[in-house]
């Protein structure tokens, strides 16, 4: 059958069996195929969203929809009498050209599929990528969208994420707060340790287990350096970090524990003698 024969108003041809069958197929593809495809795509989205995540559901349903549209369009064109071999040939050449031009996009798409399969993070997780920290808004085919804490919208290509170190701050349910505390050299380390652990024990956000720990880091230039390690559930992490530092300062003031300023001591050669100072008169 030649192209556009269907639109030829020759009645003999119209009522030929073959033409009739083609008409029926064309009608079925056009008027039933597309609605059925839409329904199938919605069902795939619903099913995969329940089984996996809403992001993955959206991606699967789009894949089904676009593939189905291509199949239906090619089938319709075939029913209309177009020789698809020519079209496929042209599509192949265009595909190669588009492929070269869209290497980056294809890389992002492939990276996106790997991200979906690997699941290093999910929507609503807080991640850090190349010094950018934010809440994951969506994981799309080409990129991941973040909202920073100061409400900026950041789009990061999937290829960048696959190639970079990604820190998922909220993956595990509990997190540790590390606080560097420096006290004057005159202070008793055991007493300071006791005070720090008591402050941690009295803070209701601080978890009893994993238990708070105080580590003596070393002898600093101006202070004895200690490290207080306390744990909180991830939602309380920031509140604990804010509150416990204030509580430590308040408690140190009450106990008379000195937090020294950075300082240098000068010695003139003997620790017991002061540095000699000569006042010179200038006429």
């Amino acid at each position, binding site marked *: 059958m030649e192209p556009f024969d269907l639109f030829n108003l020759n009645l003999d041809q119209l009522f030929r069996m073959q033409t009739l069958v083609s008409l029926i197929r064309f009608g079925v593809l056009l008027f039933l195929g597309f609605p059925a495809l839409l329904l199938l795509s919605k069902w795939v989205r619903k099913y995969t969203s329940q089984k996996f995540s809403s992001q993955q559901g959206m991606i699967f349903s789009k894949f089904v929809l676009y593939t189905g549209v291509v199949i239906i369009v090619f089938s319709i064109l075939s029913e209309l009498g177009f020789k698809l071999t020519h079209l496929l040939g042209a599509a192949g050449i265009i595909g190669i050209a588009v492929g070269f031009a869209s290497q980056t996009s294809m890389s992002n798409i492939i990276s996106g599929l790997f991200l979906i399969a690997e699941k290093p993070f999910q929507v609503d997780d807080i991640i850090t990528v190349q010094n950018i920290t934010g809440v994951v808004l969506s994981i799309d085919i080409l990129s991941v969208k973040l909202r920073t804490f100061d409400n900026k919208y950041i789009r990061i290509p999937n290829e960048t994420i696959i190639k970079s170190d990604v820190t998922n701050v909220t993956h*595990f*349910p*509990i997190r*540790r707060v590390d606080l560097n505390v420096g006290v004057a050299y005159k202070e008793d380390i055991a007493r300071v340790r006791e005070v720090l652990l008591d402050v941690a*024990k009295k*803070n*209701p*956000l*601080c*978890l*009893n*287990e*994993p*238990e*708070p*720990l105080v580590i003596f880091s070393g002898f600093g230039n101006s202070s004895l350096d200690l490290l207080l*390690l306390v*744990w*909180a*559930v991830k939602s*309380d992490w920031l509140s604990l970090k804010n509150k416990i530092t204030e509580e430590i300062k308040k408690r140190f003031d009450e106990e008379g524990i000195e937090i020294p300023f950075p300082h240098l001591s000068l010695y003139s050669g003997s620790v017991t003698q002061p540095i000699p100072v000569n006042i010179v008169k200038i006429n």
Partner: protein
Amino acid sequence: MNEQSEQTIWKSYEVQNDELYSWKIGDLKLWCKCATNEIQIAYRHFVINESENQIEPPEDIVWSRWALKNNHPKIQLNPVFPDRSVVVKPESSFRIKINAQARIYVRVPIWLQINLIKQKPIHLIDIPTVILSNTWFGTFFEGELCYWISSGVRQQVEPDLTRPYSAVCPIQLINKSEEDLLVEKICLRVHNLSLFFDNVQLWSDEIKILYKGRNDISQIKATGTPPHESPMAVLLTAPRRPVKKSITAKTFASLKDLPGLGIPTH
């Protein structure tokens, strides 16, 4: 001003307009008053050196307010268990041999539940009588947020009139595994327990924990009846989350599971 003692507080009260009511339960001081079509509740936990005999609420107290349909509301004070599981550690860990049993007692500070009495009780607020600290039961990867009980585990119990705000939970530990059960830390799912009162002491229903091995989760059954230490105790409060038969959950953990540094030791 009406102040109630701890022994007789589990009942209903008709709150008159412009009258201030107060209750003292353990560390908790509670105030309640009623204005036109409104009920207001405030509370404070007193720490050492603060005045426990303070009758009037402090000026900086924060009032929770509910608008009502009618004046002269009636409120009911009920004891309830905390809204999360509790973790308790024996003073020293002990072992239960294969097929052996042990009976232990844990004191859990209760919460105070205030309901408005209508045709159906309307829940207003739950308040802890003692502020408990948080703890994590599980691993660094998964687990649940619980409260930490510092009162420990006892093998005998005596009614403690100085702490009527705590409920005694009798627990029967049964080792049905093929190894000794080392009891270092226990997670008690109190939201599945009922509260009973025998006019002296609050009790939970009897709890049976069947230990099936380190890699298996334990089977926990709450009988729903008063323990045999106080068979005549009367049911005051049903469980927050009733369970028909039994539940299975991780109940025992080792002290080495959660080292403070975050580095697993095994």
